């Protein structure tokens, strides 16, 4: 009925955790890929821009070459014009190129300096140009000196040759640059294509990763949601079980409480019946007492009734304990001594002093302890004092720390050893019997009752694991008195509730 096993509880799935790991890996991969892509793109872009730069440079070289070529052509034309007209203005282009050609060559050299073949070509061109300008200078001198035919001859022969060579070299330069330009443009185009391909690839890869991440994320979220639902179910079930268990426990507690109340009321009832039955026994003894004529029989019945009374007095206190298992020693013995005092002869000469510690004792021992105390006190009343004599009886129950609890009944009456000294030979055979006699009850039956009382004391003391130790009280008064000390080794002391 009480379920304690947890075996049927739903186990929480672990694949959510695995999904989580995959998702993390995917996101990390995406970032890594993005980083690589960015680096690659940067690299390809730089390559592309370098290629473009080279294309631009080649175009510039071509322009410089073309400019040089034009200038030379202009100088040539100007020279011819001058030869025809002698107009100085025609020489202007020539002079300009003559003054600036070295600068132009230097510039060309700078532009092609990374390419040794082309540089060599430019270097070869420079002296040819210088030679050409020398020839033009010579032609112009001829023309000034009036040797027009010589000038024209020179111009047609060396001038033309040089000019042809110059044009051929420039063409050569230009052709090389043209080839270079085509090549560079092609490589730039290739790089651009590569760049585009790279970007495309990366876009596709990123898209794939993003898709994968999205799917993983969805799965992860789904798994979490399912876990949450399962957990909620689990909690609900747990709460239900706790509720059931609590109700069950409450039911048990209620049942236990009912049972306890029933047991208590039964016990109270039984105690009440015992009390009534003891009253019945006491009444029988009283009726019998009334019926007998013999004085000794009457005394014996009175003694019996007194003992029943002691049992009843002790028993009366049993039901008062909170748990029915323990009882206060002072309450039990107080009731016993009260009832004994109530039955004392009138005159009030005998005092009973009660010094009983409020020990919690087992209810089982209560009646025996009450009987023992009653016998000791009644014995003292009967034998320690003469009728009409004042006296004091002290009852002590104590539990010294670390020691054995003891019961002690003492009186300030005539001491028992004094009786022995007076010689009552017939009693010496019973060492434990309290064989004191008071002066007025020497009858045989009375002694028999004293003997019975001593036997009862002896037996109950043994039941408690002790025996009566007699000694004089000697409290400085006239008489030595008697002290009877019994160690209650087996008296069961209980923890107070």
């Amino acid at each position, binding site marked *: 009925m009480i379920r304690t096993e947890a075996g049927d509880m739903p186990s929480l799935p672990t694949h959510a955790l695995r999904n989580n790991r995959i998702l993390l890996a995917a996101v990390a991969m995406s970032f890594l890929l993005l980083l690589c892509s960015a680096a690659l793109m940067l690299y390809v872009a730089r390559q592309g821009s370098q290629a473009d730069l080279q294309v631009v440079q080649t175009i510039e070289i071509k322009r410089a070459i073309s400019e040089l070529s034009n200038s030379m052509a202009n100088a040539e034309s100007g020279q011819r014009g001058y030869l025809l007209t002698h107009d100085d203005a025609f020489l202007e282009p020539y002079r300009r190129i003559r003054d600036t050609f070295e600068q132009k060559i230097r510039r060309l050299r700078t532009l092609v300096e990374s390419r040794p073949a082309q540089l060599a070509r430019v270097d070869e061109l420079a002296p040819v140009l210088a030679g050409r300008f020398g020839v033009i200078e010579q032609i112009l001198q001829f023309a000034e000196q009036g040797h027009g035919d010589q000038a024209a001859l020179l111009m047609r022969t060396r001038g033309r040759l040089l000019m042809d060579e110059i044009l051929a070299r420039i063409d050569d330069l230009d052709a090389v640059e043209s080839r270079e330009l085509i090549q560079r443009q092609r490589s730039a185009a290739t790089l651009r294509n590569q760049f585009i391909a790279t970007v495309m690839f990366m876009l596709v890869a990123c898209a794939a990763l993003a898709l994968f991440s999205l799917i993983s994320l969805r799965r992860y979220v789904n798994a979490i949601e399912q876990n949450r639902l399962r957990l909620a179910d689990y909690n609900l079930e747990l709460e239900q079980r706790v509720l059931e268990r609590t109700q069950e426990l409450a039911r048990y507690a209620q049942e236990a409480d009912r049972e306890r109340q029933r047991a208590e009321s039964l016990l109270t009832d039984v105690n009440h019946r015992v009390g009534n039955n003891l*009253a019945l026994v006491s*009444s*029988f003894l009283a009726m019998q007492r*009334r019926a007998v004529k013999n004085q000794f029989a009457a005394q014996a019945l*009175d003694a019996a009734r007194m003992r029943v009374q002691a049992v009843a007095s002790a028993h009366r206190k049993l039901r008062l304990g909170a748990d029915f298992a323990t009882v206060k020693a002072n309450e039990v013995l107080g009731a016993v001594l009260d009832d004994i005092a109530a039955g004392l002869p*009138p005159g009030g000469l005998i005092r009973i002093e009660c010094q009983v510690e409020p020990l919690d004792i087992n209810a089982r021992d209560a009646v025996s302890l009450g009987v023992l105390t009653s016998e000791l006190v009644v014995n003292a009343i009967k034998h320690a004092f003469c009728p009409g004599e004042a006296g004091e009886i002290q009852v002590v129950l104590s539990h010294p720390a670390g020691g054995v609890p003891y019961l002690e009944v003492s009186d300030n009456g005539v001491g028992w050893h004094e009786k022995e000294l007076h010689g009552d030979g017939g009693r010496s055979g019973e060492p434990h019997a309290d064989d004191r006699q008071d002066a007025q009850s020497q009858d045989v039956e009375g002694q028999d009752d004293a003997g019975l009382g001593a036997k009862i004391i002896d037996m109950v003391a043994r039941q408690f694991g002790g025996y009566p130790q007699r000694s004089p009280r000697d409290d400085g008064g006239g008489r030595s008195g008697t002290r009877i000390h019994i160690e209650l080794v087996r008296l069961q002391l209980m923890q107070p509730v």
Partner: protein
Amino acid sequence: MRRAQYREGDAAQGQGAGLNRFGGANVLIVEDDFIVAFEMQNLLEEQGANVLGPAATLEEARQILASERPELAVLDVNLNGEFVFPLVSDLQQQRIPFLFTTAYADDDRLFPESMQSAPRIAKPVMANVLIAQLKRMLDRD
């Protein structure tokens, strides 16, 4: 310190003496146990009381009260499972002093608030205790 109570009517002395302490006073006894009731009746009659009853049930006690007027009442608490308490209000109305004899003497919880102060004598009842208590109640009247 405990002093012996001086009570008149010690059983040994009162026994068969035919003393007339109660001077024929009517005493109602309510007790369901016939033996106990009979012994109590003997005891009180020895002391010169005129015993009414003994009644064993509430009904019997009420019948007696209808026709007689006791000066004192001795009530057993539990009459065969029936509590005597309903009778107490009748007695209180007629101002008849009463005492309880019961094996429950030490159990206060059992007694209704208005009856907590009434004298209680534990069972088995000691003759001298009962007589002394009744005498006190009679003298107070």
